[in-house]
């Protein structure tokens, strides 16, 4: 049994807030999880949930109030750990007076490659993210999408075993997003571990072996995307149309959503026959009856809505 690629143990981060900096705001509360080698792991949560805080803690940009973490067996405080990881920050910004190639060469120097090997790797990374043409253009002229690609390039430049990506799809057009997805899949094919945070759930559903959902600093759930949503209640969705001149039973009309002439109603499994009976009574035309497959999105919104003060989440100092 190999050691997990990423081990997070009770990681907690408090920020002092308020005018006198006396009160503490807990932006991450005792997060514990493990990511196995070769997994693509999604880290989900609405804005302000603590995703970026977690990544910054892992990278050593900020320091935990308590708890620790290990990557490939090495503590996050060990500078040697950084040799085996790559990191794409959220909204990356780089030295705008350098060209893409110069930036990558600069970063490559920190890994101790020979000059020839540096050149090779830089060229390869640029090609991988499709920036070979723009390699010698100064970064200050890059669009956001191009910067994102440079960011990915510098994260995979040294072929690390574990790659951390913070919102890798943000700012990309659909073509760019597809490219990033391809890169992630290729990394997985190469046996690397990818840990990325996102709030685009469809990407997570598609790419991830497992996901963790974070909300207000707390871990809400962890497992394969399918596992998480199966925690929710199953039910059935009925699509129907009302007959001309025939009114629907009041209760039904209230629970259904209407678009044009069509109605849609979600019904718990137990009530199916009862509702169908009501519809039969008012001679409604049944269009379809299908099981509701709750998505990660629904799980998400339920999670967010259940909190009385969603605006609270914006106060996090991680920005």
């Amino acid at each position, binding site marked *: 049994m190999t050691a997990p690629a990423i081990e997070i143990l009770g990681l907690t981060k408090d920020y002092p807030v308020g005018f006198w900096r006396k009160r503490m705001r807990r932006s991450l509360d005792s997060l514990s999880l493990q990511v196995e080698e070769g997994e693509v792991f999604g880290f989900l949560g609405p804005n302000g949930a603590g995703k970026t805080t977690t990544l910054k803690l892992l990278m050593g940009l900020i*320091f935990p109030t308590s708890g*620790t973490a290990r990557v490939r067996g090495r*503590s996050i*405080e*060990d*500078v040697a750990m950084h040799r085996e990881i790559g990191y794409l920050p959220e909204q990356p910004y780089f030295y705008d007076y350098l060209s893409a190639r110069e930036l990558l060469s600069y970063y490559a120097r920190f890994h101790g490659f020979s000059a020839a090997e540096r050149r090779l790797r830089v060229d390869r990374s640029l090609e991988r993210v499709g920036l070979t043409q723009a390699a010698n253009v100064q970064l200050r002229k890059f669009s956001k999408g191009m910067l994102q690609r440079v960011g990915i390039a510098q994260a995979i430049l040294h072929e690390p075993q574990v790659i951390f990506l913070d919102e890798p799809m943000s700012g990309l057009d659909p073509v760019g997003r597809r490219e990033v997805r391809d890169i992630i899949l290729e990394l997985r094919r190469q046996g690397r571990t990818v840990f990325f945070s996102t709030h685009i759930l469809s990407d997570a559903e598609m790419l991830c072996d497992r996901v963790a959902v974070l909300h207000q600093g707390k871990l809400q759930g962890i497992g394969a995307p399918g596992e998480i949503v199966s925690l929710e209640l199953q039910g059935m969705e009925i699509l129907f149309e009302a007959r001309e001149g025939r009114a629907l039973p009041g209760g039904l009309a209230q629970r259904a959503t209407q678009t044009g002439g069509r109605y849609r109603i979600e019904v718990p499994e137990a009530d199916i026959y009862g509702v169908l009976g009501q519809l039969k009574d008012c001679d409604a035309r049944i269009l379809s009856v299908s099981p509701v497959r709750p998505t990660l999105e629904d799980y998400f919104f339920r999670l967010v809505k259940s909190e009385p003060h969603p605006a609270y989440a914006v106060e996090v100092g991680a920005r």
Partner: protein
Amino acid sequence: MSRRSHDRTLRVAFIAIPVLFVAIASLQMRIDAQTAESGTQQDELIFTSGAMLKKMSLGYDSLLADVYWTRTIQYYGSRIGTHHAKFDLLYPLLDVTTTLDPNLVAAYRFGAIFLSEPAPIGAGRTDLAVQLVKKGIAANPGDWALYSDLGFLYYWRLKDYPDAAAAYFEGSKNPAAPTWMRLMAARVAEKGGSIDTSRMIWQQMYDSTTNPKIRKWLRTQLDGLTALDDEIHLNELAEEYRKRVGRYPISTREMREAGLLPGIPVDPAGYPYVIGYDGKAHLAPESPVQEPKQ
């Protein structure tokens, strides 16, 4: 095992910083000691005129004057009593100070005394002292004390009684000047180098100075003059003794027993005067009192 690498930096820094501060302070002390010992004054002062500095000071000249005045006192204070008591920089320092702030009268007065005083107490350059005081008078015509300083220089250092009298007279013209200045002018013209006149002048300097260190030094000068005066008196009495007894007295006790003295005279420090073989009175060897140099 938490916070390993970051705390290590802190721990090393925590130890290294005080150690380094101590090392730096020691090095600085060594540098200062060697600068003082070798006597090389690395002050750019030697080479910069006051006028140039004034321009460079961009309006902060009076502040800079204070800096240089403090440096002057530092310079003097650090050298007095050492065997390197040469005061080559005293005049340039005072000149720069007074160029930056021509109204810093204390500087002129300080220069009047210590530029003219011979080594090892002063620079021994009466010419520079006169030059400085005249500069002061030009910039501060209403300051009668400077005239008295000039008078002092001519009288005591240069033995130039006519010029001294003239200085006192000029000063006395100032309505704010005290009445003794005119008297002094007359007296100097008339009596020249008598000890009484000298006494008066030194006493005048003493009374008009507020600086405690200078006052202390002036006090010693006055005591020296008192001793001189006493010695002259004793010499006269010794001659009288010789006339009566046929030889010079060997001590002041003999003179007292002969009825010439009411008691045993002591110098201002309390030490009895001794009579030499030649009948001349001297200060006791242990006495700290010294006759003033001229």
